[in-house]
């Protein structure tokens, strides 16, 4: 996957400024940066939901700006859990099944075959037997797993995750990171996630893209997570004996 001098402008404001990076599959990559850094915009541009003002993205040979439909066929997107409307009466099974039912026309019936695929996928993410539960009754970590299952049921080549650790306790964040690493190593799914915090997945040696409108650093954690580099993207970063404070996670 390659981004070449990608710029995105919203209402005259620069959201991404000549962003360039190149990732070779298989990759486990975290895009980190402060609020308003353009992280979600980058994900949306990769999926073809936002058209770059200039520059080019290439994902497995596809230009998302020209063929967004093709990217959506190979990419699984996991939105922020906080963007989900919990008032809607919907079961876990229905959420996950939509991953496959979206490919067919109405009335999109849950056939026994789809049900069994859903159950298999739920097992894969550690939610076995929870299909009939209303989505809103799940815990934060379980909701995140269900959304990952919805993306996974489409057998994607790449998972694009927007803040998968937000609003979760640290041990749950680590469980989600472990799940993602397992999907990466055992199923060969490439991972590109946006996160404020990378400590839950630091053990898996992700590639890090440090973004604040433009790319300030790109590489392994030991090369990127240095105070002199972090201060460029996080002007308020503070060094303490025990580590570096760069900001506050959502929630």
């Amino acid at each position, binding site marked *: 996957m390659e981004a070449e001098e990608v710029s995105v402008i919203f209402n005259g404001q620069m959201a991404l400024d000549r962003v360039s990076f190149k990732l070779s599959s298989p990759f486990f990559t975290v895009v980190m940066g402060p609020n308003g850094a353009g992280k979600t915009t980058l994900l949306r541009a990769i999926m073809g939901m936002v058209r770059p003002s200039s520059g080019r993205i290439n994902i497995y040979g596809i230009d998302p700006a020209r063929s967004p439909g093709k990217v*959506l066929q190979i990419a699984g997107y996991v939105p922020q859990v906080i963007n989900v409307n919990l008032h809607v009466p919907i079961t876990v099974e229905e959420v996950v099944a939509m991953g496959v039912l979206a490919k067919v026309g109405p009335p999109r019936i849950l056939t026994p075959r789809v049900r069994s695929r859903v159950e298999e996928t739920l097992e894969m993410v550690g939610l076995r037997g929870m299909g009939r539960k209303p989505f809103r009754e799940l815990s934060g970590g379980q909701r995140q797993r269900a959304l990952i299952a*919805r993306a996974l049921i489409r057998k994607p080549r790449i998972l694009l995750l927007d803040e998968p650790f937000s609003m979760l306790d640290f041990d749950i964040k680590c469980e989600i990171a472990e799940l993602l690493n397992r999907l990466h190593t055992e199923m060969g799914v490439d991972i590109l996630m946006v996160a404020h915090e990378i400590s839950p997945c630091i053990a898996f040696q992700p590639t890090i893209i440090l973004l604040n409108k433009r790319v300030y650093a790109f590489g392994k954690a030991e090369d990127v997570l240095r105070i002199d580099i972090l201060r460029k993207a996080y002007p308020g970063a503070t060094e303490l004996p025990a580590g570096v404070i760069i900001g506050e996670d959502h929630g």
Partner: protein
Amino acid sequence: MVELLALAYLLAALSGGIVGSISLPIVMSRSVMFALTLLHSILGGAILGVYLNTVLRLGLPIPLIAALTAVGFSILTAELVEKGMSEDVATALSVATATTITIVFSYLASHVSSTAISTAWGYVMGVSAIATEWDITMAAIALIIVAPTIHLTMKEFRYIAFDEEGARSLGLNVRFYRYLFYSLVSAASAVLSSTIGVLVTHVVLAVPGALALRIGRGHTVVAYSSSLAVILLGYFLARVLGVPPSGGVGVVSVSVIIGMLMYERG
């Protein structure tokens, strides 16, 4: 007399069916604000229809003009939302325009006919307890179109309401479904406004959906049964109290909301 009563209750039942079909998706997708303000467009369209019929003697069916105006404004709202405007702002713009139409044409109509304003107000208040065959036909057509379409696409509406961005990423045509939903709500609201009145449609649209979501299971059954109960009981109460049907439906709707709140509090 018996036949007139039967027609009135048949119309009430059809209206209940229409409300039952659209109320749940309206509440679920947090479009109550849109649905309520849509009624301003219907009112604007109705007043425009009254004016055109008075001045130009066109003899146009007012519900049709009201429905077309509402569909027009809802498509405008949908397009503005699709272009990135927030739903609140897009709705406010539509309401402001529709309300301006209402005020201007009410004023103009009052100058050309002494009965124009009372005709328009009849539409607002839903004062007529008499159901004509035309009313029954309109309500039946609306029910036949709206209810099956809503049920056929309920999964999509529910899914978009649950996670719009996720729905887009799965390849669902969110724009199409938004247009379809807004158009169905417009058509249903226009027909309801011509039968039970604009004001009571305001009240009754959200009640069955809210009740169904509060109860938490058997959503569709609860939405339909509560909608039928509210409107039929409302018609009955109106006859007992000697007020317009809209008054009876309003009293029952408010009672249901208060009952729901009391039940929730313990």
